[in-house]
Structures are given as structure tokens and as C-alpha cells.
């Protein structure tokens, strides 16, 4: 076995299988991802990195439970294999290793036909997961959450404050909370020529108004440069909402998403700032995190422009 990985023996014991190779995959921002050969099966081991606990992020144990609940509900997810406890002092779990395209910029160039309705199919299944199946999921006032996050940044952002003010002034009647994915968009789905294959990255799952998830992939940043296609840079919102209504009985008009789109920009703008602080405070030094601090202005401009047109 890879003698270079000090927790390889622990992994074999927890999996109950012989591990013949393990390779650290590039790209894990808040977690490590290892491609592991276990008795001939390829599994992906997700393992926490030290000290990157974002206040809204699930523990790996809870993330694994969400993945299991999603699999039971028929959501297309990599098959959950096992929660592994701590490996070398950090939490980890194993799931099926899947292949396919996740890079948003590439998907929007040539989206597979039917992706709009396939997104709605998965979202409808996620929103049908019984909340009592996952009692640890948190709800709470979404605007208070982002005010609090913005305060933690310690730098004035009057444009984001303006967005939060406008959202408070125009708050829609709430819909009952559902189990939300929390980061449902291009970049977190696996696509092949056949269409949507898997929904990934469940660490931000929580309870919320269903429209928070529904509107998230329409935020301009998640159109990956294909601005004219409001739904994730790949298609029209109409088909997506029709399909979602057909499956859930929830009627959401395209105009109902405007408020949530402004919220999405506040959310990602604030997210950029908090992530850049991970670099600035030394928690997680990385040029990628660093530049996010300067990217927040894009979401600020977009939300002001959306409000101009509202």
C-alpha cells in the first residue's frame, strides 16, 4: 500500500477492503478528494481539510447522511459507500467515483439537449425529501444569515447593504421550507452527452424556501459567460419552471425569481468576500481565494442593475 499516506491502514480497516492504490485528485478547495482502488472498485474518498469550517457548511458525517437520503429519494448522485469517521484526524467518507464534465464554461458551450428539464427533475426529487429524515438541517432567516456573514468580513460593502435593504423592502410571501441542496448549479453537476448524470457537493444542504434553490442557477455568475441564456447559460427558464411545477405542484412564475436572483447575487458576492478572508487570515493560503475578494464587485454591479430593472 501507499506508504506515503499515513492513514492508508485506517482507510483499509474502515472500508473493510484492500486498498491497492490511492491518488490525490487536483482541485479540492475545502476538502481533499482521493481516487482509491478498493478491492477492484474505484471509490472517491472525500476528506476534510484543517480549519475551514464555514458556518453554513455541514460536517462530513451529515453531508454523507444527506447523500444517502438523496440516493434513497432517487436523486442522481454518486452511490454513497461509507462514512469513514476520522482518517489521520480528519473526517472522511467514501462514495462512488464518477466521471463526466463538471466545468461550467465547457458545459455552456455545448449543453446536452433536455438539460433544462433534467435540472428540474432532480430539484423536484431533492425538494421531496422528507425534512424529518435529516433533523440536523438548519433553517433560519436568509437575510439575517447574509447580514451576519457580511459583518464577519470586516470591510464596508454599501452595494451589498443596498441589496439586503431592497430584499427586506420587497420580501415575498414565503413558501413552506423544503430540503434544499444549497448550491444547485452548473459546476456542481456532472454532465455527459446523455445529459445530467449526477448532482454533487451537498455540503451546503439546509432547509429553505424552495425558490432559493430554483433561482440559484439563474444567477449571472453561474451562466459562465453565456449571459443571454438565463438558466445557467444553457437554456430558457420557462421549460425548467413548467417541469418543476408538473412534478411538485408548485407554480413559480419567471418573475417570481427576480427577488431570489437579487438574493443570489448578495449570497455569492458575500461568499466571495468570506472565501477571500480564508486566504487573508492565513487559514487557507491560495491565489484563487485571494482574487475572489475582487470578484465580489461583479455581483454588486449585477444586483444594482437587476434592481434598476425591477
Amino acid at each position, binding site marked *: 500500500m501507499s506508504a506515503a499516506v499515513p492513514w492508508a491502514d485506517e482507510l483499509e480497516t474502515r472500508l473493510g477492503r484492500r486498498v491497492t492504490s490511492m491518488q490525490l485528485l487536483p482541485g479540492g478547495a475545502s476538502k481533499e478528494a482521493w481516487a482509491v482502488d478498493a478491492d477492484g472498485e474505484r471509490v472517491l474518498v472525500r476528506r476534510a481539510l484543517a480549519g475551514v469550517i464555514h458556518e453554513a457548511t455541514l460536517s462530513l458525517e451529515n453531508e454523507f447522511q444527506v447523500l444517502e437520503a438523496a440516493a434513497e429519494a432517487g436523486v442522481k448522485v454518486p452511490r454513497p459507500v461509507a462514512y469513514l469517521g476520522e482518517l489521520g484526524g480528519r473526517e472522511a467518507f467514501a462514495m462512488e467515483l464518477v466521471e463526466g464534465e463538471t466545468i461550467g464554461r465547457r458545459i455552456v458551450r455545448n449543453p446536452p439537449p433536455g438539460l433544462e428539464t433534467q435540472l428540474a427533475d432532480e430539484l423536484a426529487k431533492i425538494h421531496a425529501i422528507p425534512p424529518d429524515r435529516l433533523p440536523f438541517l438548519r433553517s433560519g432567516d436568509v437575510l439575517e444569515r447574509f*447580514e451576519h456573514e457580511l459583518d464577519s468580513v470586516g470591510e*464596508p*460593502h454599501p452595494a451589498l*447593504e443596498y441589496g439586503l435593504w431592497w430584499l427586506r423592502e420587497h420580501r415575498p410571501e414565503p413558501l413552506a421550507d423544503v430540503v434544499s441542496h444549497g448550491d444547485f448549479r452548473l459546476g456542481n453537476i456532472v454532465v455527459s452527452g446523455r445529459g445530467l448524470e449526477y448532482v454533487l457537493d451537498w455540503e451546503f444542504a439546509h432547509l429553505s424556501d424552495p425558490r432559493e434553490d430554483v433561482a440559484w442557477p439563474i444567477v449571472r455568475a453561474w451562466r459562465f459567460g453565456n449571459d443571454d441564456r438565463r438558466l445557467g447559460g444553457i437554456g430558457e427558464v420557462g421549460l425548467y419552471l413548467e417541469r418543476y411545477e408538473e412534478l411538485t405542484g408548485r407554480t413559480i412564475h419567471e418573475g417570481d425569481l427576480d427577488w431570489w436572483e437579487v438574493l443570489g447575487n448578495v449570497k455569492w458576492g458575500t461568499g466571495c468576500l468570506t472565501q477571500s478572508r480564508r486566504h487573508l487570515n492565513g487559514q487557507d493560503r491560495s491565489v484563487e481565494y*485571494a482574487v475572489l475578494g475582487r470578484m465580489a464587485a461583479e455581483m454588486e454591479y449585477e444586483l444594482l442593475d437587476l434592481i434598476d430593472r425591477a
Partner: protein
Amino acid sequence: MPDRPTALELIEAVIEFLSTEVLPAATDHRAKFRTLVALNALGIAYRELAASNTVLLSDDEAAALARRIRAGDVREGDRELLKEHVAAKLRISNPAYLERYE
């Protein structure tokens, strides 16, 4: 005044090195992506140091405005001012982004 190259000229030199030597040699997607991010970061620093680019609101002014809006006291003209303020930041961080609104 320190000797030449100036800060801007040094940044330019590193931009040239990364784009002509490091980027073409990057083998995997990850290395290529991170090099592009680094080039982007240097581009931001370059535009910020170039004298023509300045922000509209000082830190104190931005902080006062943020506090006033948080308190719910929003006034006529705030949004227009904020758009100018954010546009000035974008002329440093990502001038091409603003063109998407033209």
C-alpha cells in the same frame, strides 16, 4: 524614488513570464487554471497601480454609507452613486465585465 524597473514594470515582467513560459508549459487543467488566476491577480494589481484608476468612495465614506443603508435610511441617488462606485472598482478588477452591460 527606487531604481527602475518600477512596480508596474516588475508586474509586467512577471505577467510576461507567466504567459509566455509558465502557461504554455502547464500540463494539467489545474495548473493551467491556477496560472490564469495568477495572471488575473497581477492584472488587477497592475491596473490599480496605474495612476488613472481610482476608487470613488474612500473607506470612511463607504463605511458611513454602509451603516446608513443598514439602518434603513436609503436616499434618492444612493443607487446611482453605488453603481458608479462599483463601476470604478470593476475598472480595476475586471474592465471587460462592464462591457457585458453595454
